[in-house]
């Protein structure tokens, strides 16, 4: 099976935070964005919303700094997963994460990390705007290329004939 990854279409996110609540409900059985593995940062004075997601890095710093080896890679789901039994709550993974995606559960005293919901990411399933996608890693930018191509066509090519552009 091809490796799959979670990607964000930043221009589509409306900042509704449904992903956060779904994530906390599915994983923690409570409605609590503070315990979600995905979190939206809203630059409110600019009305812009940016979801911060775990990138499941190929060289995962969270795994490398973890002393009790609580973070392991699951090659079936292509996700690094926190073993709550092994996690000692040292929070080194949170410091090491280059994108700030790691989170912490103060009640259980363990790190919260995106596990891609065993291959069926719930944030993707319930995002009303289609801002999140779970796609093959080797096709990661094809969709974007089409968006750019469409834009290129409507803004540049359609105004002139092809040979004029050439």
């Amino acid at each position, binding site marked *: 099976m091809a490796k799959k990854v979670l990607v964000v279409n930043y221009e*589509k996110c*409306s*900042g*509704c*935070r*449904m992903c956060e*609540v*779904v994530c*906390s*409900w599915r994983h*923690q*059985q*409570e*409605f*609590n*964005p*503070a*315990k979600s593995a995905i979190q939206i*940062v809203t630059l*409110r*004075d600019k*009305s*812009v*919303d940016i979801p911060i997601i775990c990138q499941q890095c190929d060289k995962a710093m969270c795994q490398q700094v973890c002393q009790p080896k609580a973070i392991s890679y699951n090659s079936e789901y292509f996700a690094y997963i926190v073993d709550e039994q092994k996690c000692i709550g040292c929070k080194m993974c949170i410091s090491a994460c280059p994108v700030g995606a790691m989170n912490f559960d103060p*009640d259980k005293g363990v790190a919260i990390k995106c596990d891609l919901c065993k291959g069926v990411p719930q944030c993707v399933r*319930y995002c*009303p*705007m289609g801002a999140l996608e779970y796609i093959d890693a080797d096709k990661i930018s094809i969709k974007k290329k089409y968006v750019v191509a469409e834009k290129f066509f409507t803004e540049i090519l359609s105004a002139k004939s092809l040979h004029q552009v050439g």
Partner: protein
Amino acid sequence: MDKKNSYAGKFVRVNLTNKKIEVEPTPKKLLREYIGGVGIGARILWDETDEKTDPLSAQNKLIFLTGPLQGTLFPQSARYEVVSRSPLTGWWAHSSAGGFFGPELKYAGYDFVIIEGKSEEPVYLYIDNDIIQLRSAKHLWGKTVPETNVLIEKEVGDKQVKIACIGPAGENLVRYACIMSDYYRAVGRCGLGCVMGYKKLKAIAVRGTKGLGVADKDKFDKLFNDWIKRYTPEGKYWEHVSAMRTYGTFALTDWENAIGRLPTKNHWTGYFENAENTIGMQPLKNNHYKRHKSCFCCGIQCKYVSEVRKGKYKGTESEGPEYETVEAFTSNFLSIDTDALIRANYLCNIYGLDTITTGHTISFAAECYEKGLLKKSDTGNRELKFVDKPENSKKIMETVLSLIEDIVYGKDEFSRLLQLGSKKAAEVLGGDAWKYAIHVNGLEASGQDPRPHKSLGLTYAINVRGADHLTSLSSLDELGYKEELLRRYGKKLVDILADRLDERYKGYLVSEMEEFYSLVDSLLLCKYGTMWPPLYYFDDLLDIIPIFTGFEEYSDPKELEKLASRIVDLRRAFNIRLGWTKKNDSLHPRFTQEPIPTGPAKGQVCNLEPMLKEYYEIRKFDWETGLPSEEELIRVGLQDVAKELKKKNKVVKNPKIPTTGRKWVHWSKRIK
């Protein structure tokens, strides 16, 4: 987390006079009998104020309420409600906003916050989970809404803090100032920002990281996907959900104009020629739409940011405008200048003004000017006209825009007069001015007209907070939801009910909507999803309320009816205690006596009486006095209210209830 329901479980009482802050468990009885939102707000306001409580006094209360849905995964769980006595109308006031403030309050651990007393110095309330502090707001006083947000975020060092605040309009006691949360979401109507300003409370800033649960987890999981489906192409009303997601409430401008119900020139008519091509959904989408936004955890997603791209106001950017604002600052002045509209929306947002009352108070003055009741010398030299030719829109709207700012700061005598709203301003002006103050019970009519949409006439007349569209409006006739009418009321009534111009059965329909929305505003669900489009109805509430609250009795329609009536009757009782009588259940003569002069509904007036009779029949009000029935209050569990009203001679033992001869099966006997 061992939550047995979706309530936060505690509430906060803040006394601004002695700076005392109390946290107590939310009484189970209060939750059980009133659910949340307006329900609980009505109970507290009834208990803790009386007819001597001046809206602008330390004794008046200002209550910020959530309900069982806030902060949960229910796909419309954003709203919070504010309840008080209105300084604009003098009557009962409720108003709500979406965004993120309501859910955050519950994540902090609180179902509601009661504000009482009055501070000497400006303060703001800061809540961070268990930490609750009153902090000085001297440095925030005078700041606009966005400035206040940025300063508080910096001060508390947390950009996730959610803020409800007032702008300079509330500080300067403009009677229709609103409370703004999450920068751009307005607790708009009835002047609750003015109450906050009087109490010298600049803001409430909340941060919460606690979790919430549900009473019935299995049933929640089972129904969640069914609810979600309603917001997808598989849903029955996908076409409307999709229109809201694409255009927001802009979409209404075209639809309302098509039925002759788009308020135009201070409610003179309901049709604005060429609106579709000038101020309609397509021009606004093409020329001003910038980015999509949403409230917390919403399936509909109707919010957006809009901007001005050229000319004098280039760079102006704000969330909205909603349909009501579009109407108030375009067709209301006969203007096609949408740049001025975006600017007006922005100004109202940053200063904290209700766009509806602001637009309609200024258009009231414009009509007085047109009719010669106001001269240029009276208006501080402002040429306050309606737009005579479309190409003059820009110039005339410039005057309106500068007047908005003058009203906020009370720059001169005229702008200070307009700070009072149209009803009181008309009283000051005297003479015929009242004819042009298009309000019901002190609240300016919103972006509707009862002449082409008869049931709305009753909505305006009986609403506890005056002429608004959110307390009992039926969209089923307005927008022609025939399939839904058929499902709810059967074949016999569907054509009569669907006919916007037919008054028959509309009293029953509006009464049902009032009961429905009393629950919607207590839970708190959004009107988008319950009014337009009609995604949810009473049968859904029979599931929803027990799932979240654990109050199983509300899966029985009979008990649900009592709950709805308890809230409706208590709010009415609040107004009755203040002196509301049958005379108040009336409409402005513009709607009952002046036939609509142009457009698809030309020639129509609203005939209120037949609808009022049906409404009184359902509510069991006394036809002569408008007073409630003692037995009915007792039946719905308001024994103490009946007792107090009885002492004041404001309840009737055997009310004269009108009969209409029409047959109507109450929803509680229809649904299962």
